């Protein structure tokens, strides 16, 4: 353990990890949105396909 750690504000040491976690969470949301968009694109396509089959 380095001595300087004992002297810095205990809260500020955690800033970096929050920045990284927020970035990871942001990416997770980004990919989730893409996945949702792809899924809704295909499900819309499926819906378009279904009526002709029924009629």
């Amino acid at each position, binding site marked *: 353990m380095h001595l300087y750690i004992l002297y810095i504000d205990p*809260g500020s*040491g*955690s*800033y*970096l*990890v*929050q920045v990284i*976690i927020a970035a*990871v969470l*942001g990416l997770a949301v980004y990919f989730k949105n893409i996945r949702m968009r792809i899924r809704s694109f295909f499900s819309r396509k499926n819906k378009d396909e279904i009526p002709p089959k029924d009629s």
Partner: protein
Amino acid sequence: MADHIRHPASYKDPSGFIFQASEKFYRQVNKIYAAHYDLLISSGLSSLLQQKKLLLAHKEVKENMLHSGDWYLTLLPEQIPFTSYPYEWCFEQMKDAALLTLEIVKLSVDKGMILKDATPYNVQFLNGRPVFIDTLSFEKYDPSLPWIAYRQFCESFLFPLLLSHYHKTGIQPFLNSYPNGIPVNVTAKLLPWKSRLNPGVSLHVFLQNKLSKKSKNAGQVNSFSKNKLLNLISHLEGIIRDLDNTDKTEWSNYYADSISGGEYLGKKEEIVNNLLQKVDGRKILDLGANEGFFSHLAAAKNFDVVAVDKDDQCINTLYKKIKEKNITNILPLCIDLLNPSPASGFAHNERASFGARIHTDAVMALALIHHLAIGHNLPLSRIAEYLFGFSHQLIIEFVPKEDEKVQLLLQNKKDIYPEYTREHFENIFRQRFTITEKVQVPDKYRIIYLMKRSTET
């Protein structure tokens, strides 16, 4: 001035402090905190949180009671009848306290404020629910910065909960060893390998641990945003909501599982109900409460009950029950009578011992004495002396050696308890109490007594 006592634990924050005057707790707001306090009020955050019962209600007293030069305002908060500490809470209580803290952060950010610290000592239990008590924890929010109290939140809420979840133990042993939170490097070592498979754990524990070793510079961060902060808070919320330490112990379902379960309980219920009617006052301490069957009887008779048991799972079950039924007058706590919470903190006076906090009119000790006397070799005289220290009235059960449960205790032990008899028990307790009622549980050897302090009868 003479009867004004500054609370010994209230020294960390220059924004103000707690003091006691004529048996009431007050909070002084110092000038240095004035702008933040005014924002707390003018933003509507204080009234919103009080209305949602998340923040302890308080009245402003415009009197400088301590004649202090730093004085800005005095607050008279709603009084907490029994102060409890996180190392006395069960898992679910801790979980609710953590979720309360996160909820307050979310609501605060919306009103342009944030919590500058996040410790479970800022939470107390009132009317069955957790409530945030530190009115001076709020500060103006700067959206460009991450949450200053994140690490403290992790160490004092998230990590104990995670360790408890993965090891299926209570949180008390962890918080007794680390009353101010468990450091990230210790948590990382104590968590099992499989916890790394949980993305939340790998980010908040293992990544944080790695960074805490490396970062030489606290880092100049000014690229955060409100959105990022809210994502982080929701992420923590999601992780905590999924945690659960349920495990079967020897004490869970003690009554339901006992051979003579239902019928025996019915008879005992009738006896205890009768005795409760003869108890004066309105405060009861239920020692060895198990899942609170008898605490509920007392609560139904409008007593304010503090129900203690050493088993975390039992207190968990009791807490869940009172939450579900919306019972406001039972406070369940995990206390081991053989090792109750000591006085702790700087100079031993930041947090009072469990014994020093007991103010009760009566004590219920049902199916407890044989565990202390035979299970742990405590002489009956020491038990009587201990109970006399804080109980004016006792509803106490004597379980003699003939009883099946005592037989069970003696199965693997040498019977070194020749004095453990009903006569000796009565003689010992008569030295300090007067036995006013004595009822035998039908078809059992057990006897339940109502006793009153000798001086008071």
